[in-house]
Structure formats: structure tokens, C-alpha cells
């Protein structure tokens, strides 16, 4: 056990498994049936296996993992909603979890009443909540709706209200789960500002997410959880890279004998598989596919960033290449990563002879990241100079 003063949360050798019932019923009948047939009636699923890490005070810490990796279970253990089977979690200071949008929100109550209920869950009495009521409503921008029942709110409005209350909680450690997934761009920006403020004020923040953008933007450190284990812990850039590789591996499992068996991979200039490039680096995009009918095909390539902005697109017909008609086709494309730092993906299409329709369309065929070695913002990395008189 670490008792050092600068540790906010110490997770020590945590194990957690769930008993998943095999039958849908959980009644007495099932108990009797199981006792008679000597079945256990459930299956044990190991969700977390020997997980350890430490979060320092004042740190913005990311917990990253794909769906079903166990990251949310880990979060619930940290928030002491679940009890670990083995190991222990030491929390120094007060901790406010924000696991889901609007804990304890009741659709039958008005927005106003829900604020007080939610505040009570965070430990504020009526008077204290009244004092910060205006501030909360201001932040959520929901003045007109406070006396409406919550069931008449849109999901975005509910999130805004929930988030506004949550950030009011005077707490040493704030635990957030996928909060930024909802809400419009303007509200997300507000949330980012609040994060920056909280961070400055010394609040320890734990963010569980699969949004690499948020991790790179905010986190000081992060852990990557996969299949219930810590795969990697360290700098956000390393974690983001490991995460991208993980996702890529998963994609490769697609059956190869299908017609849509298009393999796409990115290489660095020295012919090594790579998904991380510096701005201006050469990216070598390799596209493999089988074409049993030997029909004439063209290839289309598009680049999107992780906000879905279409950054670049071209195809082999536009560029004046002859259609490909072999049985096995391997095409490489060499392009410069003249892109602002961020996450991007290649979308690849196998098109017909005239390049008018896509025969096979692979959105996000391969993901890559442009590292933050330059500080420009936006999408394009244009060649530029400054001049002054």
C-alpha cells in the first residue's frame, strides 16, 4: 500500500469477476432446478485481472480501452460502486463519480427538482444548492425549461443539466465516464474550458473514454486496458498509438475469402507498419485486394479526421491511371502527411471501370495519427512563412 502524499488513487492488484446467469430467470424455481440438476446456474466472467496503477494528485488521468475491455468496471470499482474480489483501491480525498448522465434524475420531476435531488446525491443540502442554482442553470443554458418535467427534455439538455451540477461538486477527485460523447460542439467546448479550470485548481480528474482526441488533449497520463489487463501505461501519445494498433489488429480478423477482402495498411518511409507520423512525413498506403472476375477496377482514397471532416480525396481514374484488372491487385500510394496534428483515417473504395460507383467501400479502413510536433490547428498543414515590414 502506498501512503505517499501525492497519490490520489492507488489501484493495487484488482481482480473482479461477474457471475452471469445462464438462464434468464433468477427465481426460486431456477434455484430448485439447478440444485436438482447440480448445475451452478451461472458462468463466471473474469472482467479485471490483476490491475494496478497509481494516479497522482492533480493529474488528469485517462483510462482507455475498447468496448468490453473492462474500463467501465474499473471505473465503478474506483467509485466504490462495485466491491473488488481481490486487491484494494486506496482513495485519498473526496471522490465524485459521474458515471452516467444525471444520476438519480427522475423524468417525472421538473428540472429544478432534479437539481436538488442530484445535488443531495453529491452531498449538498437545499440551501447550498439554492446558492449555486443560478450558476448551474446559467451554465446549462436552460432557464426557460427549469419548471418543465425532465421527460420533456431532449437528451442533450439532460446531459447539459447533469454536467452543470456535476462540475459544481466541491471534490478532490472527479471521475468521468464518456461524458463528452453527447452535447453539441459549443457545449463540448464549454466542458473543455471547465476541465482546464478544474485542472488549474488542482482537482484530480479521471476520464474513461475511447476518444483519443480527448486523451491527447487533456490527459497527463493514461492507461490502456484490454481484456481486463493493463496493456500499457504512460504518456498519452504512447497510449493513443497502442490503442490505434489494437484497433487495427482487430480489423484484420475479417475473413479474407470474402469478396470485400480488401487489406489496407500504412507504412513509414522505411517500409515498417506505422500509424504515427510527424507532420510532412511520407505515408505509404498499401491496398491489396482480390478480383476473381478480373473486372476493370479503380481505387478511391479519402482521408477523414476523427470529427468526420472530409480532408482529402482522390481516385486512380481522376489521376489518369489505367483500370486494374488482375486477379490479385496490390497498389501503393505515396503521399505526404501535410496535415495538422490529430487523428485521421483512410477510407478506401474499390470502384467500377468509370470510377462512378463504389463496388466495395471500406470506411475507416486504417487509422493513423499525426503527432503534435507542430502547434498549428485545423486540418491542413500548409506551407507558410511570416513577413513583417
Amino acid at each position: 500500500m502506498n501512503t505517499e502524499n501525492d497519490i490520489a488513487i492507488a489501484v493495487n492488484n484488482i481482480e473482479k469477476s461477474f457471475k452471469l446467469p445462464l438462464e434468464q430467470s433468477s427465481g426460486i424455481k431456477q434455484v430448485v432446478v439447478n440444485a436438482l440438476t447440480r448445475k451452478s446456474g451461472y458462468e463466471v466472467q473474469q472482467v479485471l485481472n490483476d490491475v494496478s496503477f497509481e494516479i497522482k494528485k492533480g493529474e488528469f488521468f485517462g483510462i482507455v480501452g475498447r468496448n468490453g475491455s473492462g474500463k467501465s468496471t474499473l471505473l465503478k470499482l474506483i467509485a466504490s460502486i462495485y466491491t473488488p474480489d481481490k486487491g484494494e483501491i486506496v482513495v485519498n480525498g473526496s471522490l465524485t463519480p459521474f458515471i452516467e448522465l444525471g444520476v438519480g434524475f427522475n423524468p417525472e420531476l421538473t428540472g429544478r427538482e432534479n437539481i436538488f435531488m442530484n445535488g443531495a446525491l453529491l452531498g449538498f443540502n437545499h440551501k447550498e444548492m439554492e446558492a449555486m442554482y443560478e450558476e448551474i442553470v446559467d451554465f446549462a443554458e436552460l432557464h426557460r425549461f427549469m419548471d418543465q418535467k425532465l421527460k420533456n427534455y431532449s437528451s442533450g439538455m439532460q446531459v447539459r443539466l447533469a454536467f452543470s451540477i456535476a462540475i459544481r461538486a466541491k471534490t478532490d477527485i472527479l471521475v468521468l465516464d464518456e461524458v463528452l460523447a453527447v452535447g453539441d460542439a459549443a457545449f463540448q467546448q464549454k466542458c473543455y474550458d471547465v476541465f482546464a479550470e478544474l485542472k488549474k485548481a488542482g482537482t484530480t480528474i479521471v476520464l474513461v473514454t475511447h476518444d483519443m482526441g480527448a486523451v491527447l488533449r487533456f490527459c497527463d497520463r493514461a492507461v490502456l486496458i484490454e481484456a481486463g489487463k493493463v496493456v500499457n501505461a504512460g504518456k498519452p501519445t504512447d497510449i493513443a498509438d497502442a490503442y490505434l494498433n489494437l484497433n487495427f489488429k482487430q480489423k484484420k480478423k475479417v475473413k479474407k475469402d470474402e469478396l470485400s477482402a480488401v487489406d489496407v495498411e500504412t507504412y513509414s518511409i522505411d517500409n515498417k507498419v506505422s500509424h504515427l507520423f510527424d507532420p510532412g512525413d511520407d505515408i505509404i498506403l498499401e491496398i491489396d485486394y482480390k478480383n476473381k472476375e478480373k473486372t476493370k477496377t479503380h481505387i478511391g482514397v479519402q482521408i477523414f479526421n476523427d470529427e468526420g471532416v472530409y480532408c482529402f480525396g482522390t481516385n486512380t481514374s481522376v489521376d489518369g491511371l489505367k483500370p486494374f484488372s488482375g486477379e490479385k491487385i496490390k497498389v501503393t500510394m505515396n503521399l505526404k502527411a501535410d496535415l495538422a496534428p490529430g487523428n485521421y483515417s483512410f477510407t478506401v473504395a474499390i470502384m467500377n471501370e468509370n470510377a462512378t460507383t463504389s463496388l466495395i467501400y471500406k470506411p475507416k479502413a486504417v487509422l493513423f495519427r499525426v503527432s503534435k510536433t507542430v502547434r498549428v490547428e485545423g486540418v491542413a498543414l500548409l506551407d507558410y512563412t511570416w513577413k513583417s515590414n
Partner: protein
Amino acid sequence: MKLSNVFSRRNRILLRELVITDFKLRYQGSVLGYAWSLLKPLFLFAIMYVVFGVLIKLGSIEHYAVYLLFGIVLWTFFSEATNQGMMSIVGRGDLIRKISFPKYIIVLSTTISALINLTLNLIIVAILMIFNGVDIHASIGMLPVYIVEIYLFALGLAFFLATLNVKYRDTSHIWEIIMQAAFYATPIIYPLSLVIEKSTLAAQVLLLNPVAQAIQDARYSLITHETITPGSLSNDTLLIVVPFIIVAIVFVGGILYFKKNSKYFAESV
């Protein structure tokens, strides 16, 4: 569950807010609103009174109407506290899965709601007492003791049933049947004298039930000294003490059982 923590600041705030919400939501959208918590036992009383007081004429006891209403009110309180307490943990599953807080507050809040209803209903009893010209005896001072007794018994059962209901949803159906039987096994509509005519032993057994004993004792202290209580039935102190022992066992046992299982509610609810 340290006693100092049971009513810590945060828990008090939460308890208060849960009780208020509970009350607001109970009659949400109904025209008569809170009036229903008064009207329901009143109608039950009216039905019982017409059937058993007027038609079958069970009411050989003085002030039978108040005697009957008071019994129904106390029984309703017991039934409400145990039923809602039993459903409370499962009903608040959304909360339990998302935030960590002492789970007993949920059970406590529903039983307190029942307690508030009881207070409202006792006002109606008081009004009927005035109409019926019931004399107030010094024994009224004992009334709170019996109400607390029923409350603690109900709370212990609520803790036990709430835990069991998380594991087996059959619990609520079984409890419904038990309560049906218990309603008739408790001398609420009929005077206990009817049972004694057949067998004194049977009456003594019925009064081992803490609810039966508490209702009879409460009636004795508030309405009429004609009420048969364990004390008036026999001099055996054991018979008087047993119901209280049962209450103590159920209360402590319920809390311990709840405490042992409550940390796994989040995953199984």
C-alpha cells in the same frame, strides 16, 4: 455501518431529499394528490365497517368504529412500510448502479414515508375519536412505544425483504400472500374476544405476533380499556415479553443480513 455515520451530514441530506421525492412522486398526476393517502384507509375502513360492523355485527366492543379504524391505520402502516421497503432497493437500481452511497438510506426513506402517512392518518383517527366521544386515558402516554415497536419490526423486515428481493424476485409475491394471511390472523376487524370464546390458547398464540400485540396494546392505550391485550389475558410475563424479543431479533437480524449483502447490490440489482 457505524452509528456515527448513519446520520452523517451527507446521509441526512440524501435521506431528506429521497423522502421528499418519494412523497412528490407517489400521487404524481392524480387529481386528488396527497388526499389519496388519507382516502385509501378511509375507504377501507368504510367497507370493513359496513361489512363487519353493520352487517355481521362483530362490534360488541365499545367505540367499535374508532377501534376498527385505528387497527386498519396501524396495519396499513405496517403493510406499507414492509412492502415499499421490500421494493425500494430494486426500484432504485438506477441509482445504486451509478453512485456509491449507503444503501440503507433507500430503505429508511421509504419507511419514513410510511411513517409520515401514518401521522396523517392518525389525524383522521383523532377526528373520529372526538365524534365518537372517546375518553382520553392516562395510558395514551404508552402509545408512542407501540408505534415505535411496529416501526422497528417493519424496518427490520424491510431490510430483510429488500435484500431477499434483489436475489429472488419471487419475494414480493410470497410476501403478498403472507400479508393476506397475517391480516386475518391479526385481530383487526374482529374483537379478540371472539377467539377467546373458542380457545384462550389460540388468542395467546395470535398475540405473540408483534403487530397483533402492538395494535391491541395501542388500542388499549388510546381507545378503550376493553381491548384485550397480552397483559389482560394472562399474568405470564413470558407471553408479554416474547413479541418484543421477536421485534429485537428481526430488527437486528434484518440489518445484519442487509449489511452483509448490500455491497453486491450494484452488480445484482
